[in-house]
């Protein structure tokens, strides 16, 4: 029994990927690991006073979204775990995949501008993960 890593943000665009990962985990009898990465680049060009720890606020929101994903998986009888990280998305996915002994990394097919990656960029990144870590990747 392996572990499938599914990076998610929540929202309607992510549900398709979550559903694909849940179905695959059920078929293979694998455990699901949902990952949320805190990305604060949106604050880069704002000089507004940032006196709160935005990273912590967004991480708490991410953990809530992960909990929703976990509930969706468990409703389908799939065991799911969650993990949230702060940092650069590409690096964090690779790190988590290696640290958690993941057997498969699953990505959602980019849906227009809402996605973090464009398709060509994502295919290249998936190939990079396979090359560097030997972990299988799927774009669903």
């Amino acid at each position, binding site marked *: 029994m392996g572990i499938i890593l599914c990076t998610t943000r929540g929202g309607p665009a992510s549900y398709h990927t979550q559903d694909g990962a849940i179905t695959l985990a059920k078929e293979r009898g694998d455990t699901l690991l949902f990952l949320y990465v805190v990305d604060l680049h949106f604050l880069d060009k*704002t000089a507004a006073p940032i006196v709160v720890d935005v990273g912590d606020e967004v991480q708490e929101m991410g953990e809530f979204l992960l909990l929703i994903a976990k509930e969706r998986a468990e409703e389908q009888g799939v065991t799911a775990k969650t993990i949230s990280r702060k940092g650069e998305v590409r690096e964090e996915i690779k790190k988590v995949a290696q640290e958690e002994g993941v057997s498969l990394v699953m990505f959602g097919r980019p849906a227009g501008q809402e996605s973090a990656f464009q398709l060509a960029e994502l295919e290249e990144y998936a190939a990079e993960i396979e090359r560097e870590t030997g972990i299988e990747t799927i774009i669903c």
Partner: protein
Amino acid sequence: MSQLILLSSFYLFTGTESAVLESAATEGSVGIAALISAGIFILMIIAISFRLLHETAAALLGAVTIFLVTYIGGHFNPALSIITFEGAMDFVDWNVIFLIMGMMIFMAILSETNVFKWLAFRLYLRAKGNTWLIVLWLVILTGITSAFLNNVTAILLIAPLSIQLAIALGLSPFAVVIAEVLASNIGGAATLIGDPPSTIVGSHIGLSFGEYLVNMAPVAILCLIALVVINRIQYRKEYAVAKKSISPTLVEKLESESDIEDFPTLYKALFIGTLTFVLFFVADYFGQMPLSVAALSGAALLIVWVRPDMEDMLREVDWTTLIFFIALFIVVGGMVTTGAISWLATRILVLAGDSLTRAIVLTTWISGIASGIVDNIPFTVAALPIVDLLTANIPGAEESNVLYWSLILGADLGGNFTYLGSAPNIVAVGLLAQAGYQLSFDRFMRDSVPVTIVTLVIATIWLLVRY
């Protein structure tokens, strides 16, 4: 001092009203230094509005360019001299800088207690599954918080929990977060410390905290009521089908996020905060004590009482914002000194003529529309000298300061037109994207334009009737 310089430059034009109009009609050109300073300002605005550079970097680059042109260009050709370093310092409104700094220190300590999330979660429980009521409470909480604390901080503290609640209830997070952003800009207009345009204008004309509150809070409340009514109409279908409750696991998670983290600090912050606000109200009684002195006194007392790590405390003061304001005052100072602002102001004066009504409508709506397109902070700093000239020349404007109120309302409410208009809008877009909801420019405007138009109409009627 800065006001003296502004006025002295305007008196070149304002001997009598007819002289101004005649002067405006005949004066066809401005000096090379005025053109360069205006060019630098326009480039800075473009860089900020289209996010080509960080706001602080853009403003700093603008200020430095003005000095380099003055000292290096002016060395070879005196006509290129825009403003000296010493002259520029007179344009920096230190009352604004220290007021914002004092409030930042207060906010940094208060926000660590988690009190805003605690309040937001209590309001959710109080709504007892009525989705519309939940949104109403959250929007009102944001509006009130923004009246006393910085708008961006209010959004950063309240919006993440609101997004979670909306998703859990099966409601589009746009219904809550866009309304909260609009409420933060409206609420910011209610007090002198609520929004930077309010602080800048209030400090410029020496308004007291109470005087500002009496004039602006009623219209801000009316605009907030209009916002919630429009939101109810816009999202009536979504509210009808939203869930009435959320799963116990999710409620447990929200509750654990919403605990008060440090009761002693919270009590101290509330006590000192109350004292500070009392000082804001009575500041005028003590020889027109600037509000920055009251804010810094509160911040200093709180630091001494709470004893936070000073290194951490200083890191939490957002120096980039303070530098942004200083650089901005310098860039606009360059335009005032060279006559670029006066040139523009006389043209607007010709447009307004003798009519105070026309001037009110023009100031409110030009400020409103401009603040939706460009950042409302640089706009306000640049528009202030223009309003000075209009106020000095239009009969009846000086007694009531009505054109300054028009500028404040236009800049604060107009910031809602597009998501480029003010910083909370940008931050909310980023937070929504982090939750997987991409808020496009058009989608934001679908909600924001009706609210902005209605609130600007309310503001215009208020100004015309009240003054």
